[in-house]
Each structure stands twice: as C-alpha cells, then as structure tokens.
C-alpha cells in the first residue's frame, strides 16, 4: 500500500506542476499583443449650460458647446475635427443631426478596467435631435439627477463607447460633474457642468482596449 501511496503523491505532484506550468503558458499566449493603452484623465473641463429663465423656460443667454477630439485628447474648435461636444448635461457626437462627421456612441454597463472590448451586439447610434446617442434624462444615459439635493451624479458602471469620426473606438467614463470632483458635492456651492472623465482611445481601429 505504501508504494501506491508514494506513487499517488508523485502523480499528484506531477499533475499539479504540469497544470501550473500549462496554465502559465496559456496565460502568456493569451496576453494581448497590443501595447498597453494609455488611460487619459481629463480634469475640470467646464462646459456651462445656457442661462435659462426658470419661470418661463426660455433661454436668456446661449452658451457654446465645448468640442473635444479624443485622439488628440484636447478641446478643439467647432471647425476642427471633433468627436464629442459637451454643454450642461448634453453630450453630442459628431454625427447625425449634431455634426457632419460619422461619429457614433453607445452607453453600456460594466466596469471601466474590465471592459476589454466593445461588447458583441452593441448598437452605436448617431444623434437624432432631440434624441441623442448618449441619452438625456435622469437615469437614461450617463447621469442621475436627485430632485431633493439637485445633485447630478454620473451613474457608476455606465461606460460611454464612442466610435470616433475616424472610425476608431474609445471607452469613456465620466467621474464627476462638479469642479474639483468633490466627494460630496453641493449643488449650490460647487461649480457644475465641470467634467472630470477618463478614457482609453484605441488608435489602431480594433474593438479591443
């Protein structure tokens, strides 16, 4: 019996080592050949909304959209190539009724770091005013509005996928709507419509991040 015991131990050890090694090699094989993509963090991008008379609902002073090029990672003018444009709570894409480009977007659910590729079946849409590809309205798109505290919060787990004007893919997560990304914002004191967001842009045209 003792021989069998020993044999069993050897076989077990051999299998354990083999499993370990083979797992390791598989992991190596599956490692993405694409070099690590940079996570771009944009802090405090102010995109104030129009001034609206609360009683009549009329726009008193119109403000411009803030245009953003994701590949460059910077604010551009309306005449340059842009991917998204922000004003107040609205985020437009350069496509459909909002722009002449072919950009499109979709909102998906998940964790930013874990989202390694565009999920199968994701339907990218273009703006069809007043319906935007990134929907407006509390709970519909990227934000939630609390009518008691008047706070706008980016919904955790909502990721915006953008197909840029060049047909490249970007995953984007909005982190805060208030200047300085305060942990507990105050709707009356903190400057709103001031975005902090991060994104990963895949320049090679693949759907993987």
């Amino acid at each position, binding site marked *: 019996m003792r021989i069998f015991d020993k044999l069993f131990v050897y076989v077990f050890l051999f299998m354990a080592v083999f499993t370990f090694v083979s797992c390791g090699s598989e992991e190596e094989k599956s490692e993405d050949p694409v070099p690590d993509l940079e996570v771009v963090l944009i802090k405090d991008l102010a995109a104030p909304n129009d001034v609206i008379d*609360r*009683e009549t*609902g009329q726009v008193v002073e119109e403000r411009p959209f803030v245009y953003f090029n994701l590949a460059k990672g910077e604010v551009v003018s309306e005449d340059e190539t842009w991917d998204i444009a922000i004003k107040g709570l609205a985020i437009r894409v350069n496509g459909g009724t909002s722009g002449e480009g072919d950009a499109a977007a979709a909102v998906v*659910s998940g*964790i*930013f770091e874990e989202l390694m590729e565009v999920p199968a079946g994701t339907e990218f849409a273009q703006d069809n005013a*007043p*319906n*935007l590809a990134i*929907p*407006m*309205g509390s*709970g519909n798109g990227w*934000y*939630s509005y*609390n009518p*008691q*505290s008047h*706070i706008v*919060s*980016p*919904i*955790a*787990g909502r990721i915006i996928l953008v197909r840029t004007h060049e047909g490249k893919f970007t995953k984007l*997560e909005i*982190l*805060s709507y208030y200047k300085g*990304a305060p*942990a*507990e914002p105050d709707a*009356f004191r903190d400057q709103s419509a001031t975005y*902090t967001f991060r994104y990963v842009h895949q320049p090679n045209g693949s759907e993987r991040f």
Partner: protein
Amino acid sequence: MRVIFYLLILTFCLSSTYAQDLVHKDSIREGATLANIVVTATRNEKQIEVLPVPITVVSREQIEASGLLRLNELLAEQTGLAVTEDHGSGVQIQGLSPDYTLILIDGEPLIGRTAGTLELSRIALADVERIEILKGPSSSLYGSEALAGVINIITKKPKQGWKTTLSGRYGTNQTSDFTADGSYANEKLSVYALLNRYQTGGFDFNPERFGQTVAPFHNYTARFKVAYQLSSRTELDFSSRIFYENQNPSFGIGSEADLLKIVGDGRVQDYNHKLDLRHRFSDSFKSQLRLYHSAYSTNNELREFESGSMYDANFFNQNFLRIESLNEYYHSDAHILTFGGGVVREAVEATRYNDVTPFLSQYLFAQHEWEISPRMNSIIGARFDTHSEYNSQLSPKLALRYELAPWLNLRASVAAGFKAPDFRQLYLNFDNAVVGYAVLGAAELAEGLQRLESQGQIAQMLFPAEQIGNLRAERSWAYNIGAVFTPHQKFSFSINAFHNEVRDLIETQPIAQKQNGQFVFSYLNLNSVFTQGAELESHYTPLKGLRISAGYQYLIAKDRDVIAAIENGEVFKRDSETLRTRRVRADEYGGLFNRSRHSGNLKIFYCESKTGIESSLRAVWRGRYGFGDLNANQILDNDNEYVPGFVTLHAAIAKTFKQKYRLQMGCDNFLNQTNSRLIPTMPGRLWYAALRLQFEGN
C-alpha cells in the same frame, strides 16, 4: 346591489332555520375584563389571549397618561411601528409602507390618501376609547389595503347618566388644543357629541431663508353619535364625524440669490356618516346592516409671494359609499361562523384626472372560528372581492393557537393580502407642458399613446404593448409565528416572527420615449419585495398602578429584483475619493429605504387612583435607516445614505383634584433630538400644560 339582496335573503333563511333553541356561551370567557377585549381580528368580541394572531391594544388610560393628542404621536411609540413622512405622516407595519395599512374608525375605513399615505394627524384622540393594532394581512375580512395590518380606532361609549368635559392645552410652537364633549345615556338611548380644535404655529429650522420648515395649521373635528335600543333585540346606531383643516405653507424655490417665494393656502375636509342596524334574531344568531358614506377633499393654492400670481392650484375630491351585511352565527360552544358581504362605490374627481368612471366592487366573506379542544382554537376564513376595474381577488387566512401550558401559548397564521390599484395609478392624465413629459394611468394609457402616436410624438416604445395597460392588484402572502409566556401574573413576554412576501408592486416606469426626448410614464406591476423579522414585547407590573413595558423589533426588508441584480454583478458604486467604480457586494445592500433594522421602546406608566396621579415616561428608539440614494445606483448601499439612529424621550405627569379637575404637564422630545437636514418634520423639545374639567351626574 344584487349581492346585498341575496345576502339578506340568506341571513333570514339561516336565522329562521337555526335560530330556535341553540344556546351559545359567549366567546368571551369568564374573568375577561373590558381591557382585553378586541374586535378587529375577527369582527366580533374576543379576548385578546385566545386570538391566534398578533394584536396590540392601546388603552384610553395610556393615551391620557401620555398626553397624546393625534394618532401619529401614538403610533410612533408602539413596538414594530414606525411613522414615516412621505406626503404626510403614515405608519409602517412589519416594514411595509403606509399604503398597505387600513385605518378604521369603529370598523369603517377612513379614506383620503395622498400618494398612498393617509395623514395620521387628521385623527384626534380626544374621543378614542382604545386603539387596536392588528399586524399581518387581514384582507380575508377587510379586503384591499389590509395587507400589512389594520388599525381600528374604537371611540368612547357613553356611560349611564350625563357627563361633560372641557379641556384646554397650550404648548411650545403656539400649539393649542381645545376639546368640549358631552354624553348622555339611559337604558334605551345614548348620545355623544364632541368638538375639538387643534392648532400649531409650526416651526422653522432655517429662519434666514424665506418660508417655514413646517407650516402653521389649525383644524376642527366634530363628532356626533346616537344609539337607540328599538327593542330588546334591535339597536340602531348613527354616528358622524366632520374634519376640517386649513394650512398656510410658505417656502422658497431655488438658490438664495434668485429665490422664488411661494405662499399657499391648503384646505382638507373629510366627513363620514354611519348608520348601523343590529338585530339579534336569537341567542345564536346576530345580524348587522351597515351603511357608510365618506367624502374627502383637498384644495390647494400656491401663489408667488411678491406678485400674487398663481403658481399652482389643484383639488381632489373622493367619495366612498358602502352597504354591508355582517352576521354571526354561534353553532355551538365550539363553532362561530361570521359571514357577510357588501357593495362599494367609489368616485374621484381631481385636477389632472379626466372623467373617471366610479369604481364598483362587491365582496363576500366568511370566517369560521373553531375551538378544536379547550387548548386549541383556529380561525379559517376567506374573502372574495370583485371589482369593475381590475381582476377579482380571493384572500384566504388560516390561524391557529395552541396552549402548550397554562403559561405558554403558541400561535401561527398564514394569510393572503392585497391592495387594489388606486385612482391615480389607473386614471392620472398629466401632461407636463413645460418639461414635455406625460404620466398616464394604466386605464388611460392605450388611448393616450394612440393620440400621441397619431400626432407623431412617439419616438419609440420601451415596453412591448402586451405588457402594459393591464394593472393587477398588489398581492402578498404572510406568515406569522409566535409565543406568549406568562410565567407570573405580573410578568408577560411575547415574541412574534413574521415574513411578508409581496409581489406585483405597482411602480412608475417610462413606457415610451417621445420625439422631444422626454418620456411617457405609466404604472406597471414590477418588483417583488419581502420583509421579515421578529418582534419582542414584555410587560411587568411590579406594583399596583406601576406598569413597565419594553419592545423591540428586528427587521429586514429587501427588494428581490435588487438582490438578483447584485448577484448578477449589475449594480455598481463609485468610491467618492478615488473615483474608481466597483460592483456592489451583497452584504452592502441595506434593503428598502426608510426601514430601521433595529427599533424599540421602553415605557413606564404609573397611575394611582387614590392620589389621582398619572404619569408616564416613554423612550422611543429608532435605529438607523436609509433616506435616499446618494451615489446614483438607486439602492441603499453607502453609509452616508443612512439617517443615524436616535432616541426620543417623552414624559407627562397629571393630577386629578376632587375627581373634577385634572392638571397635566408634559414634555415631548425632552432630549431635544432634531435633524433639520434629514428629518425636517421632527420638532425639537415641546413643553405643554393642560387643564381639564369634568362634570357628571345621573
């Protein structure tokens, strides 16, 4: 009406067949005192100890020794109940929202709810004899709304001779209460009348800002009751209650720099009339015919303070008419059959409602109480409700009590409860022209969608057409199991564990998206929730006149759909410091908002008849509870989403001189517990003094 007709026929047939020689021993055993007789659980008089279902009674003595004036104050001090604020003060029983508790006055339902809450401060305690709180569903007797429990307010019965009382009270926040009542009774006739006026100046936590945190209001309650013994077997009762309230809210909208000042005038009225004919056909058969009418109306106007122009105006009128037959048949010592039926007509007219078809409903119920052995008894019953606007409901109930030992009683029950869709959920027709969204009740939906579609306003449907428009009643199954230990005359201890499983909860949901990007909302049967926990209560009477009680409730109340979403990894949260997003863990989910996992109370009453001293000291603990979602994932999962737990302490002392004059002083919320941000409706410390004069004769 046909149902009533058949019922009456049935009543008379049964009575003539069985009424002859059956002698019944009353279901109340010898030695029972009036203090432990209740009517809510079975609709006939029962001794509380033999009931197989959990019921709490608050006596007149306790109400007076506590200096309580309104129903919300009284319920907030009871074990297992919580008074919550949502469009008024409502009561939560076994963790279920105020929408699911039926409030009765002498067995007849009070109407008039705003967003599901019946404002409890509408009910004055001045004419209340006792309050019975029945926990767990009783739809088997009472139908809709009796899903979490039933609160039955039993009013005073005039004693022989005449009696008059005058009382007045004044306290902090210019709160005053005046009551005058009088009664007369002889062998055949009894009459009772009451007038009460209550006023408060409200209070303000933020004096720098325009408006008041709680608005001033005053109200009047008038009551009239007359009972006449037509013969030795027949009695006719008429009672009437009228309530009127006027409040003057003021508040500011928007930031300090750009404040829109609003002042308002709000009126609430309700009245109810009851005519009750009782006849005892024989010793074994009693019958009642009850006619009840109630109306409720609100009228609110909000104006801009500076310009005086109208900001908002709305009204709401509700009408309720019921005819009911209630019969008791005592087959022998061991069997009591209670059965009956009724017809209800309900109507509403209001701003934002189109012409609403009145609701018509009919019901039949039967209940069999069976004393299986001297140590075991059971209740089995069911009620069938039909309704003109939604599906019929069958609500059964089964309850069992077993006396394991003279000092140990066990009880268990299983029952179904339901709540019918209300007028708002069926008929609301609200188009917000400014913002551009619409809310349509389920019955208005098909037509409303068609209209919007033909105008080319619908961009897309969010729910398949077959899923919408057909609203079902909300339904529950509940299980209660408990034990009562009375090891000593002076001491008792009870425990009751409960589980409520509620499905088809009606919730607001976007149904379609309009071309302007806004939504069309309606009501759908969506979520399932459960509440479960245990309630402990003990009473100790160390000396005559001294009574100490302690109560505690442990409660878990959760949404099954949220639990499933968390399990599937579909619920996220963001760390407010690092801004990283992660999945919410199952143990972080705190359940439904507004539910305290722990709550309890400790009360000491001392009432001494010789010296005429009555006093009470009551501590009420409400453990922490969630108030709202702050991290935008719709659920309670973060520490800053909780209101910290707190204790309020109340005390009162009274002395009666010469059996005529009674002087009382008291303090509510002695510790001055406030939370202006999260509980703005809770005032600080309130002092008061009261005087009562009482005269009686033969």
